[in-house]
């Protein structure tokens, strides 16, 4: 029973937030920030899997996000709403409340398949060459979406708000907030399990010394494929959630700038630290909104702070340690089944 304390705590947090929303303590803008935090947590922890734990240099994470966002949005709008392009709803709109996670997962699977495009070349190349390939994949995804006129092409895709309204018609609770919490919890849990499993040890071994790992009978190919697919799949899920939060997506959102922002969160938190990515995602979202009054100077101050961070604490917030390593007493609550290694 003690094993489930962190899960229960998380559910409690989620309920608290929903309660706050229902009693109008949090306005729509603050809700937006919280939901963005959730999405950023998924993005930074999934990228951390590849860049941090596995030590690769993947620069195109926004591409996978785009794939997931579009697949989920198109499916939802086609199936559950009557749209100008796709015609009337195929399934009853009320069924969206339990089919939404299904479409999210389909979006994630689609993104994972695109992740294969990056995983296969990674067998032969490393480091800077892999960076190019991921960059190219990001551009290719963006360009492909721009050319598919049926889903709006470069001008974007709308209609997700009707999907959310369909959910609201069933029960007037903040559905998207719930789904974001569910998605974030699921992602963090899956990555945690992955990292603490044999696979996790395998990818850390690949980071430290790939050839030695091969010699030690680590199946590097399978590890790489799994890690890349998991990472991009989760990014796809984050993309699907992002699309429904905003109600509008266009390919211009998923460019190198977005990938750079995600990378910044990963490096800020510390490569190879899951709790670091979570914390830095939360902090970074807050900083982005806090610095909004600065307008243009915002994007001068933030990189400056990061450079200072790199100079004085290059390993990021937590390095490659976890929160439970820094605060050992938290281990009793957050990771009760792990004994002192």
């Amino acid at each position: 029973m003690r094993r489930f304390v962190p899960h229960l705590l998380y559910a409690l947090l989620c309920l608290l937030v929903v309660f706050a929303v229902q009693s109008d303590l949090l306005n729509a803008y603050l809700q937006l920030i919280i939901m963005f935090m959730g999405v950023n947590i998924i993005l930074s922890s999934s990228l951390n899997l590849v860049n941090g734990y596995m030590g690769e240099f993947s620069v195109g994470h926004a591409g996978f996000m785009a794939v997931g966002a579009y697949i989920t949005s198109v499916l939802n709008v086609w199936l559950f709403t009557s749209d100008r392009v796709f015609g009337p709803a195929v399934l009853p709109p009320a069924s969206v409340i339990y089919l939404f996670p299904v479409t999210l997962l389909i979006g994630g699977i689609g993104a994972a398949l695109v992740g294969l495009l990056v995983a296969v070349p990674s067998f032969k190349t490393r480091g800077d060459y892999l960076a190019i390939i991921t960059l190219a994949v990001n551009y290719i995804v963006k360009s492909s979406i721009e050319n598919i006129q049926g889903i709006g092409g470069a001008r974007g895709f709308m209609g997700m708000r009707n999907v959310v309204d369909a959910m609201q018609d069933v029960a007037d609770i903040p559905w998207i907030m719930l789904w974001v919490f569910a998605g974030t919890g699921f992602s963090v849990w899956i990555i945690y399990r992955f990292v603490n499993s044999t696979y996790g040890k395998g990818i850390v071994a690949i980071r430290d010394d790939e050839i030695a790992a091969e010699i030690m009978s680590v199946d590097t190919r399978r590890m790489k494929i799994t890690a890349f697919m998991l990472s991009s799949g989760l990014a796809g899920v984050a993309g699907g959630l992002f699309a429904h939060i905003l109600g509008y997506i266009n390919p211009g959102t998923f460019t190198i700038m977005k990938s750079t922002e995600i990378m910044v969160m990963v490096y800020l938190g510390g490569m190879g630290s899951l709790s670091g990515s979570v914390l830095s995602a939360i902090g970074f979202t807050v900083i982005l909104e806090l610095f909004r009054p600065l307008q243009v100077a915002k994007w001068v101050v933030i990189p400056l702070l990061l450079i200072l961070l790199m100079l004085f604490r290059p390993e990021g917030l937590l390095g490659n340690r976890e929160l439970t390593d820094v605060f050992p007493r938290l281990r009793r609550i957050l990771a009760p089944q792990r004994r002192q290694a």
Partner: protein
Amino acid sequence: MRKTVMAMALVVLVTVLSSPFSWSAETIRVGFDIPLTGDIPQVGESSKYAAEMFKEQINGAGGAKVGDKTYQLEFFYEDNESKAESATAAALKLITQDQVLAVIGPQASKQAVPAGEICNSFKTPMITPWSTNPQTTLDRPYVFRACFLDPFQGPVAANFVTQEFGAKKAAVLYDIASDYPKGLAEYFKEAFEKIHGPGSVVAFETFTTKDRDFSAQLTNIVKSGADVLFLPQYYDEVPLVVKQAQELGWKKPIMGSDSWGSAELMKLCGEACNGYFFSTHYAAAGAKGATKEFIDQYKSKYGYVPDDVAALTWDATRLLLEAIKNTNGLSGDIQKDRDAVKDQLGKIKDFDGITGKMTFTPEGDPIKCAVIVKISDKGEFEFFKSVCP
């Protein structure tokens, strides 16, 4: 470590607590969702300047009288960075955090279309001064606009080039990644081919936003034998295309659209743009009456002749104020007031704007005339002809 976590929590708390929850009954809050940075900052600047001028004029005279109370105007400016997702986030912030009565903007269709969705679902009236794409107001009872639409502008351009240049074949070059150029290019093609037959648009070339080199597309256009080039692009791209076209040997006319009308166009284009035409909302040179007053006031305050964005923003803000006055009293409950303003906006008839008379259709679009402007040999925008529906 612990201290930083506490500090972060404190900061979040302070932000939450400092956000204004109450809707003040003494001021009228209006939000502006404009591109202060990004690709077309001149548009954002013009909007802000025009709005500021209006606010000073009204507040300086004691405020706006609605019913039997007088209110001061309070304007909130959010930068949408010329990006669609920033426009939606800015709109959300204005509506929910700043609790504005209505939103003016965004200007470019690429941001106006998605932001309109937000304003409509949050039941907040929105007036876009400059967006001409029909999707902005389509099926959205809360969204209005202060300018004509592209389905009107496309045929205006097509008719003009046929009459003025005797063009039988046309070429179009546009940015496929942006709502406005894409929509307008398609309307132009439709209109032109209706006059001259299918296939008379011999070159329909595209590029993506931020492209700098158009030599491949322009080579195709020069080879196509078209009589005129239609270029519905923004003021920062036009100079590049025009110069490259001339370098590749294009000597025939180039027709532009209302996105050319910025004060910065000639600064960036220089002599290369002399002699071309574009359709727009108003022409500063030769203006009379209230329009001339606005131009003089703007010029003396900011030092340059206002462009169509400034004039349209001025009209949009005045429209909003008129609708607010027509409600005959604001209740203080923000949702009720937003609904009241939206109803009044729909009822406005024959509003005398400096860009022309406006009456709203049920869709929220005004019926207005367009103006064809010629860029004279001195580099000035000269009124050439007026086209009314």
